[in-house]
């Protein structure tokens, strides 16, 4: 799966994108957030308040109980501020 980070989440984590195989025990966005949070201090800081983070899978907003597949493009980001 491909994972993208934007805005201050990207800055805190320190990478814009990464790719890895979906771990066996990660089936939802919630699981993935837990998995990533454990990867290092940048991730922990980025996901410290998961309720403010929005998730998109294949360019659509999804709730955190959304089921993942290994072909997904997942994106995490703060609330949008365009326009």
């Amino acid at each position, binding site marked *: 799966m491909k994972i993208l980070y*934007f*805005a201050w989440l990207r800055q805190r984590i320190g990478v814009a994108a990464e790719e890895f195989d979906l771990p066996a025990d990660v089936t939802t966005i919630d699981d993935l957030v837990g998995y990533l949070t454990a990867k290092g201090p940048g991730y922990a800081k980025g996901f410290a308040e998961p309720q403010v983070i929005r998730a998109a899978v294949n*360019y659509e907003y999804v709730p955190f109980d959304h089921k993942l597949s290994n072909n997904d493009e997942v*994106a995490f*980001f703060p609330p*949008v*501020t*365009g*326009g």
Partner: protein
Amino acid sequence: MIKVQQEDFDVSAELAALAAGNHGIGGIVSFVGLVRDLVGPDNAEPALRAMTLEHYPAMTEKKLGDIEAQANARWPLEASLIIHRYGRLEPGAQIVLVACAAAHRQDAFDSCNFLMDWLKTEAPFWKLEETEAGEDWVDSRASDDAAAARWQAKPDRAAE
């Protein structure tokens, strides 16, 4: 039509292209968003030096296309256009153009207002502000969420 671009845009040229050859259009409502200095015109030293817009290209195109399709399903539009810029922009620069052309003016007003409200809450853009104090990401505003939510609750105005 959707355009996501770094370059500036010319409103007259865009509106002329939007209306070209379609004499069923009675009015075009457009919104041009500008970079505000957040301090006001009377202050000699504006706090904002520039803002940089980051976005998620594949999702931006998709979401802008989706909300444009929704506006066209909801109002009888003759044509519509969303241009959103990204990159570094200084105070006074144009950020976004939304234009809706319709036979009757209220459809053009309402659909343009709707598109701006949804764009603010759905389009994956983020603004990084540069001020004298450093850089900071703009927070989302509760008022924008409320503005978008009213389109779900409120029935459409009766057609003219």
